[in-house]
């Protein structure tokens, strides 16, 4: 059973601030409990289908020029200023 602490930990790792912890815990718990129905599907031995895409099918690894997004934290050269990593 997923606990409120599990939810808090996952949320903090995903950089999410959750206001109403009770409500999030209750609803996410409800979702995960429902996912447990997968246990009764009897698919333990099923092979997972994977679609292989050949590298030759991929588009050329070339830069596609786009207009630059306009936002407030841009300097004169068009570079974006972002917060410092501490």
């Amino acid at each position, binding site marked *: 059973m997923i606990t409120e602490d599990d939810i808090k930990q996952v949320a903090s790792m995903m950089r999410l601030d959750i206001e109403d912890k009770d409500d999030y815990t209750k609803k996410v718990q409800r*979702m995960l409990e429902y*996912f447990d129905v*997968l*246990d009764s599907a009897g698919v333990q031995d*099923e092979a997972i*289908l994977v679609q292989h895409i050949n590298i030759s099918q991929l588009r050329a690894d070339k830069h596609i020029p*786009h207009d630059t997004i306009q936002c*407030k*934290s841009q300097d004169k050269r068009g570079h974006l200023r972002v*917060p410092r990593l501490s």
Partner: protein
Amino acid sequence: MIPAQTATELVRMISSGETTAEYIIGQTLKQIEDTSHLHAFLHMNSNAIQQAKEIDHRIQRGEKVGRLAGIPISIKDNICTKQYPTTCASHMLDGYMPPYDATVIRRILDEDAIIIGKTNMDEFAMGLSTEFSAYGPTLNPHNTEVVPGGSSGGSAVSVATHTSAISLGSDTGGSVRNPASFCGVVGFKPTYGMISRYGLISYANSIEQIGPMARSISDIQLCMSIVSGPDVNDNTTANSTPVSLSEQYNATENPKIGIIRQMASKDTRIQNILNKAIEELSSHGCQCDEVSLEMVDYSVAAYYTITSTEVASNLARYDNIRYGYDMDYTGYEYHQYVTKARARFGAEVKRRMIAGGFVPSAGYAGRYFLKALKVKSRLTREINRTFEEYDYLISVTVPILPFRIGEKIDDPVSMFLVDINTVTANLTGKPAISIPYGVVDGLPVGIQIMANSMEDAKLLQFSHILGDDTQ
């Protein structure tokens, strides 16, 4: 006059000079004002009249115009449009102007369509009632106390209320077919890979597809013939020709139809509409038998496990540095800044991100994520085997009637289960259409037909048996 004609008819009227694009767009804008209480649109194209005039001038000068000349098309707000904001109905993308057009947008603009506006949706397409839009819900035009379905709710309402002739939505678990059914229009989810997803803002890449909604099956065919086909910018597009309009369904084939047992509705009024559709198909020489797809019972759990995982990964990009909105960074340390910026995500989005962070994590992946992939694989094998014997599979699109606004909002699982009939086509990549076929308590009910992969053109041709015009 409300422009209630189908897209095909409007194109004919405009191109032949019987009416003008300016008149049709003018009437459409008036109708948008008259139906604004339904909240189908998030952003409007303020140049629509000017663009219509230009098309009229070209027609008057005898120049060749495109196959969608002058008709109003609305676009779900998760498809990138260079000229108009694209917000995914999220405050996280308030005011975002994409620097490029999605491939589908480029293709319809090349055919002289007029983008009338961007439509409301559940935030980042996570929902099936349009109640999770950060800008407020869309209302069902048939009864404003019930939901229009979702997540492409605004698109369905715009087609139903004649404020667009065609709308482009996206379908990850039924997001085109469900609102089409609830609003009484035609909605189509193509084979995975038929339409480029370049410029569709990602929710769950492995299963989502852009899909058209319209008032007739012919309009869906017209739209598919323009937007489908390979795209170098989306490596998951299938190497196939666009859906052809000329491919004719051969009525003498006596196709075999499988009625999916697990998708039966408990509501006898809805089930009766399915029975009526089966009768009509039988009268056209179709052989209809019940078939069983056992994995359908587990499909919703598999669907939400897989999509939540992809959500957690896809939405990680909204760190307000690569994607997001303008928020002053001074005074914040990096991680604090990202957390603060993400406060703008809505509750449903956060819940799915948390669930999606949990189900593939070490210690839980085997119990949830890998098992969900196994269900998806078994379901795919089951349906492929069924298509060896049957040409089409039929069910109602949604097993319940449109529900009251707010009725399911506090119970995520009862909301999820509304998707039971639609997620199979997404998990297995098959094409599926929802056709309006009956009315219960004044609310529309749609019939869903699925076909095997890459048989989109055949499926659309076949669907004409169940009627062409929206009721």
